[in-house]
């Protein structure tokens, strides 16, 4: 790809080097050092000091956070699966309909994205609060009195905010378009004659979908899954706003090490590094899994 215009990419390459490559090395450096070990090394000086600076201490503490790691990956996985279950049919139906429907659906899908992310999430908070819009609505239609009458309980509201469910809802709501768009754009570009050929060879409508449309849409599914899963794993705003303090995720944990009371950028870096490695490993496995299809579609 040697091109006379390749120098145009220079600013971007420089930018990438400054804000991506350098920080990654900084993170790695911080992760393998502690405040103490750096201080010690400065005192000792020389080559010995340099060696004694590096330590695995931060990683040794990782076990403490198993719960948060598990919760983060679990919630992100659940959110991704739900996004897929909602997003795939939506993308499929959109791609089969006429251009007018496609445009309208696209605008409706993108509309929330034009509103500020925090604002959107705050809106959900005020809906889900114990005395929020949804509970008030249930109150108004007499749902609580009905339940209390039938079961003999004393329910004043549904506890929705500050639960894992609320966090997942926030993830699904915010990241759903990232699932729909790549799937939609793959399906809409499928060669119509492939579908006719499958029909011709005896496949029913369900058969055409199962044997042709779905396998050929897998590259879209893969990028959709990546684009939902990765930000879900590392989110801290959604979990803080929708999950309160009960549902701390990796994002909040890391944030706490840099900006919060637990100030320890060395530990924060180590956690971030471990998370990054797990995410990259997940993506790598998934891409291996879908490699054949990817190549097929590039044809």
């Amino acid at each position, binding site marked *: 790809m040697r091109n006379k215009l390749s120098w145009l990419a220079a600013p971007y390459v420089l930018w990438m080097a400054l804000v991506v490559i350098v920080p990654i090395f900084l993170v790695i450096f911080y992760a393998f050092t502690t405040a103490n070990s750096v201080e010690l090394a400065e005192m000792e000086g020389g080559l010995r000091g340099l060696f004694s600076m590096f330590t695995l201490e931060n990683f040794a503490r990782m076990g403490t956070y198993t719960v948060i790691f598990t919760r983060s990956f679990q919630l992100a996985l659940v959110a991704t699966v739900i996004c897929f279950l909602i997003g795939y049919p939506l993308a499929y139906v959109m791609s089969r309909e006429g251009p007018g429907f496609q445009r309208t659906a696209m605008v409706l899908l993108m509309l929330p994205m034009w509103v500020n992310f925090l604002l959107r999430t705050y809106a959900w908070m005020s809906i889900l609060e114990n005395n929020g819009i949804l509970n008030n609505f249930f109150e108004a239609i007499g749902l609580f009195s009905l339940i209390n009458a039938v079961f003999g309980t004393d329910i004043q509201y549904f506890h929705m905010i500050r639960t894992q469910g609320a966090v997942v809802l926030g993830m699904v709501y915010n990241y759903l378009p990232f699932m729909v768009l790549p799937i939609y754009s793959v399906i809409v570009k499928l060669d119509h*004659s*492939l579908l006719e*050929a499958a*029909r*011709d*060879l*005896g496949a029913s409508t369900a058969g055409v979908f199962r044997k*042709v449309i779905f396998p*050929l849409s897998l590259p879209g599914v893969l990028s959709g899954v990546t684009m939902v899963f990765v930000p879900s794993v590392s989110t801290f705003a959604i979990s803080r706003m929708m999950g309160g303090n009960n549902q701390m995720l990796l994002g909040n944990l890391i944030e706490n090490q840099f900006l919060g009371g637990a100030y320890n950028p060395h530990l924060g870096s180590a956690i971030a590094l471990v998370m990054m490695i797990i995410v990259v490993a997940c993506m790598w496995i998934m891409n291996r899994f879908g490699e054949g299809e990817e*190549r097929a579609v590039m044809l």
Partner: protein
Amino acid sequence: MAKELIRLENCTMAFDGEVVLDNINLYINDHEFLTLLGPSGCGKTTTLRIIGGFQTPTSGTVFFDGVRINDVPPHKRAVNTVFQKYALFPHLNVFENIAFGLRIPKADPENKKKVKLPEQEIRSRVMEMLEIVNLKGFEKRRINQLSGGQQQRVAIARALVNQPKVLLLDEPLGALDLKLRKDMQNELKRIQQTMGITFIYVTHDQEEALSMSDTVVVMDKGRIQQIGTPEDIYNEPKNAFVADFIGESNILDGIMRADGVVEIFNRRFQCLDGGFEKDEAVDVVIRPEDVDIVPEDQGQLKGTVTNLTFKGVHYDTIVDFYGFKWLIQTTDYCPVGSRIGIKIDPDGIHVMKKSQYSGMFGDYSSYSEEYDEISDATLVPEEAEEEAHYEE
């Protein structure tokens, strides 16, 4: 022996009020190699898609083996299609592409239960097909690792492995280069004869149609212009369109003076045609190879050579007769400007009724431009107009 298999009765097809097929009547016999031939937008692909079940005619009836099949979807017809751009499944390898139809459970006619073919049988049938299309050893290849000709063979194998009664082929050789196309023509004919099934073939290439078919159906503007054997179509074209579309033709205005006597340029010629009204105005077709060049004083007509092109086997000679230019194919060398005479045997003259196409074709006055178009086959527009209807 010839048993009727498919019949189209008064089939009309319109898209958004635009008539694409105009009252087509056509029957197709079992074991026949039938070609739908015509220029882009003549309705040939639409006809094929109606038989395949991808389109339902606006009016009219389609019969298969005597049963009305207008509303039978493609996957329930004993018909398979080889698509124009092959439409092979890119996510499957050669073997799985061919096995696609076999892997779909079929309803058992006796107890209505869906049954799957045993893997063993699928394997042996795919392998047998691969052998028929000369692709042994390619079963593991991915589709994008195949050349155009190989993809073509996979597409044919994928359709034939289902043992359809009829194979529909939509310009299957259009994307191949000339040499490969010739090879595949022979191959297709051979496959058709080995398998003993009906082929319905769509093309705009008249040479392909003549050399492969048992029956040729010439179409234009949504109508069937002529149905016949390749010899019939070439030797006895029904109207000026057919005469012009199939091979080269000089088409002249004539007057039928009596049975066997036609007048051209105020001279009477003997011919073999009859059954016209006395003094009826007719179109006369004279094929360029049926004209004998003789010394000027012995000719039935006398003219001046205005253009000469060496074509290898013969010369394409353009001769001006009283202001009307003819194409004559001859091995005699007649320099430009020379005066010559011509003789035409009675069997070289074909008389046709006047039609809507009269006067539109068969004049070589604009020879050079026209020749450019004819010889540059790549300029023939792909089925652009017809493709627009695929969206339906």
